[in-house]
């Protein structure tokens, strides 16, 4: 599939592409639920759906990626009936989006570094919400493991992204 190089010039393709990417990230989110991780820490998961955000940041406009991200989070919360987790997903997703955008615009790292920063930021965002909702000091014990898990999962996704982007490059603007 070819990525659009001008959203204004070709709005139909942009809408179709957004729909496909939202569907793809929903499937990623669903599939990773089927893979249980043997970690007794809430919120630790690979975050496959972030692959769509990450790839999008390199090939689409930031606004388009943000819309896809928010649509995915809302749809996934309603579809899979996990409204309790909506606030956590939103906080993690939005913080991670802006951190990734910042790291990407700094032009110092490849997608791998962007993904590592994003994975960490996602878990930090979730931690902040958890700290506010639960209002207990005891949560601090989860902070360090969450940071480490976020960085490692981000690194994993970054490696996948580097492999994928090689094939997308020839077909991009």
């Amino acid at each position, binding site marked *: 599939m070819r990525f659009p190089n001008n959203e204004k010039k070709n709005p139909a393709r942009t809408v179709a592409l957004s729909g496909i990417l939202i569907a793809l990230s929903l499937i990623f989110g669903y599939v990773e639920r089927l893979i249980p991780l043997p970690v007794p820490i809430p919120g630790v998961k690979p975050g496959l759906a972030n692959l769509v955000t990450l790839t999008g940041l390199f090939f689409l406009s930031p606004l388009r990626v943000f819309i896809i991200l928010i649509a995915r989070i809302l749809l996934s919360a309603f579809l899979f009936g996990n409204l309790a987790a909506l606030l956590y997903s939103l906080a993690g997703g939005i913080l991670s989006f802006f951190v990734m955008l910042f790291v990407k615009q700094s032009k110092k790292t490849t997608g791998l570094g962007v993904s590592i920063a994003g994975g960490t930021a996602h878990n930090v965002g979730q931690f902040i919400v958890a700290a506010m909702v639960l209002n207990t000091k005891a949560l601090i014990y989860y902070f360090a493991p969450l940071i*480490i898990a976020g960085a490692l999962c981000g690194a994993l996704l970054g490696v996948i992204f580097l492999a994928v982007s090689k094939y997308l490059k020839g077909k991009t603007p």
Partner: protein
Amino acid sequence: MRSIKNDILILISILSVGLILLLITRIPAKPAGSVALITVEGREYARLPLDKDTVLTITVSGGTNTVKVADGRIYVESADCPDKICVGHKGISRCGETIVCLPHKVVIEIPDTGSEDTDFDAVSE
């Protein structure tokens, strides 16, 4: 310039910050606690002495968690939350240890023994 070297630098710095935090929050070997404090949405729900074997069903707006005290430790025996992470958590018995059920906003913790003399101070933070 975009380079893999900077990527690895980011990974290493985040991991070292994480490991240092891990050491700060985990290293001091905590003494065994005497009581388990259960809070729901930040409010105290119950206190269970760890030296008495009991079973308690916590009812929250989203469902229930059943906790059990046995052999001086407390664990979540069953729950109807979507992720069941609290059920998978191993039993806790030492001061500062926690089991958290995010979907039900339930926190089970073993408070430091020193904090018991502040019982009358119901509202803190």
